[in-house]
């Protein structure tokens, strides 16, 4: 007999999903102007979870008007300390309803409950708690003598960490005295709509947070709205460039958190078992739907075979399947479209001669799934070494000397994250200095904290989120 884990599904009884959702404007759920709706589905089952109102330009305008009015009449006049108290309240309510958020996020997104429960939701609440304390200390934030909010901020967030990205955007914006119109991703609107309920429970003044659901056109209406002062966007580099062009000459400022092709560099003296763990969490955390994923593994050639053997053994342990099962490590791919993209780029790896390996694993019949995959024998010239796959696919390259590792790591238009694995302290600091990336994880990977600035060099974006430096992005006269 073997030790097979029985199914351990998290109960969905805790969530109460409405059949239909309106837009959250001026403190209330309201119908969209048109009758158009779109479905949000559970990517693990393809079952429809709810029908979501589609916001068109006139709805976005209503939301901006509400946000402007709340900014002028209420939020900008409120004593900073009181503003902070609302954020504390929100943090607490998110903690109280943490399990509900976790289950809902897992259903709407497809990521494992272990991650939503242990990472996404607690971190989201922590972001509000952290920024709440900043609200009345802005003059100490290093953003000049007279830090002022921008006004109304348009925020567009992706589907990979729906609630966490909401927190990264909304918490600093509110703490610094801005009001917000937020557009969640088309495939993952539910936790944002539950967050709207949290705002109501917290008694947040109407119009301070507005949530408009829709697609790219909705986002575009938000970006181009003349009464938006600042855009904060997390998503693809392609869309980010479009936003940069759209706001050119308008005087709007922007923070952009975009794509990446993070290099994870393993030297031959690394703590190998923890390195293997770091590689696994670097690329398989959240199905690889992570802009800062360590999707390019750069291994010193003299330990390549040993490392890959250990890595394969470890990857074989990854439990793929029902995201609600508490033992699942790798959940569903978020959408059919994303799955198609992963398949397309990965197949170029086969075509270009890299060696594909996946462990044996049975994937569920319904839903969108991709097995954990590694490609060895990859070179810089391969598409899978250059393009962001945004899925559970790792490209393995080798290097001979530290300088070669750095040169390969930096040989990309992206510059979001990088990893360094070695027991040698001076080499870590040397590599950290050489790497052109906004976040360097040394002997660890994919760690996040509200106090730690996050953001990219080069085409990975503009500005930082988190910490004192992220706060400044929401202040005029601030550090960028």
């Amino acid at each position, binding site marked *: 007999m073997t030790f097979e884990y029985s199914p351990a599904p998290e109960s969905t009884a805790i969530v109460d999903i409405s059949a239909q959702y309106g837009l959250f404007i001026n403190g209330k759920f309201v119908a969209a102007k048109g009758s158009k709706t779109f479905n949000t589905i559970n990517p693990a089952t393809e079952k429809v979870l709810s029908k979501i109102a589609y916001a068109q330009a006139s709805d976005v305008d209503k939301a901006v008007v509400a946000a402007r009015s709340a900014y002028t009449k209420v939020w900008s006049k409120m004593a900073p300390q009181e503003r902070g108290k609302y954020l504390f309240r929100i943090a607490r309510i998110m903690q109280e309803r943490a399990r509900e958020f976790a289950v809902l996020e897992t259903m709407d997104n497809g990521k494992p409950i272990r991650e939503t429960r242990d990472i996404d939701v607690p971190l989201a609440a922590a972001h509000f708690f952290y920024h709440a304390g900043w609200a009345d200390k802005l003059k100490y934030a290093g953003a000049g003598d007279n830090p002022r909010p921008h006004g109304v901020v348009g925020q567009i967030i992706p589907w990979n960490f729906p609630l966490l990205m909401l927190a990264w955007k909304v918490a600093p914006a509110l703490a610094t005295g801005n009001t917000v119109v937020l557009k969640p991703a088309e495939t993952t609107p539910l936790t944002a709509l539950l967050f709207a309920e949290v705002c109501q429970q917290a008694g947040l003044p109407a119009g301070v947070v507005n949530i408009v659901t829709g697609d790219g056109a909705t986002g575009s209406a938000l970006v181009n709205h003349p009464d938006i002062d600042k855009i904060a966007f997390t998503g693809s580099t392609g869309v980010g460039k479009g936003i940069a062009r759209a706001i050119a000459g308008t005087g709007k400022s922007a923070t*952009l958190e975009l794509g990446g092709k993070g290099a994870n560099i393993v030297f031959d003296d690394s703590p190998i078992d923890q390195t293997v763990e770091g590689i696994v969490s670097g690329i398989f955390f959240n199905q690889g739907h992570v802009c800062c994923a360590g999707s390019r593994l750069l291994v010193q050639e003299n330990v390549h075979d040993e490392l890959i053997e250990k890595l394969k053994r470890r990857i074989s342990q990854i439990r793929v399947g029902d995201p609600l099962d508490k033992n699942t490590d790798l959940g569903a791919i978020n959408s059919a479209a994303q799955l198609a993209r992963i398949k397309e780029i990965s197949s170029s790896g086969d075509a270009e001669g890299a060696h594909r390996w996946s462990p044996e694993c049975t994937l569920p019949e319904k839903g969108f799934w991709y097995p954990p995959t590694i490609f060895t024998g990859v070179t810089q010239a391969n598409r899978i070494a250059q393009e962001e796959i945004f899925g559970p696919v790792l490209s393995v390259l080798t290097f001979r000397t530290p300088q070669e590792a750095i040169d390969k790591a930096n040989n990309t238009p992206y510059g979001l994250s990088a990893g360094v694995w070695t027991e040698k302290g001076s080499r870590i600091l040397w590599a950290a200095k050489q790497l052109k990336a906004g976040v*360097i994880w040394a002997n*660890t990977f994919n760690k996040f904290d509200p106090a*730690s600035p996050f953001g990219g060099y080069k085409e990975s974006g503009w500005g930082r989120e988190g910490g004192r430096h992220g706060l400044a992005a929401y202040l005029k006269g601030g550090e960028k």
Partner: protein
Amino acid sequence: MRIDIRKTYKLYIGGAFPRSESGRTYEVTDAKSNFIANPAQASRKDLRDAVTAARGALGGWSGATAFNRSQILYRIAEMMEARSEEFVEEIALLEGISRVAAKKQVDQAIDAWVWYSGWCDKISTVAGSTNPISGPFYNFTVPESVGVVGIFPAQKSSLLGLVQAIAPVVAGGNTAVVVASQKFPLCAITLSEALATSDLPGGVVNILTGITSELAPWMGAHMDVDAIDATGLSKELDKEVRISGADNLKRIHKFSSSDTPQRMLAFMEYKTVWHPIGI
């Protein structure tokens, strides 16, 4: 009566003083439209060469110690002080202002170098941080140079606007490709002569003279330029550069205030490093 020796105003690229590869010059006149000089009219290829020189100098300059950069910036001030008479003359001539007013501009420009010299080894302390992570990790954030910065200094100022744009960029460890004020380019060339004698490695600052509207689009679209100081661009050119600059997400900033650390930080990137704390 002795006929004086006039200066040939050339470009400053990679520490050398070439003419434009295009062979072009353009006429610069004084406030009363009298001919003053025929400085080089840089072409897109000169701009390309300047970017290559700036990229080549980046590793050494950004990798130099902050103290070393600080000393070199101070040395620039020393070299300018020695040439201040020449600057005064050029400013007074081109801008049509009194020598007293011109002298004031020169003094301010020299003092700006001294001010930014002092910043080189302080900006990390002021703008960096160690971050209290909820977990067993040491986490710190430091500002670093962004890379190659294209600079369009204020058009209406011969020297002060120029220095106020270049000094913070190089103080932060960046290298620069400067397109001098179209109308008042002479001080830029004289400045490059000061730079060339100040221990500043060749290629750290490259100075082009010419037609702003001709060069700006090439700067905006150059994929190896990381950032642009667009202070001296017209509204239209600013927009155009921002649109083409989006292709590699250049950091593009325009400044109304001078002598502030924000002008350095605008061209610096924050890098955050994590490491576990364990035994």
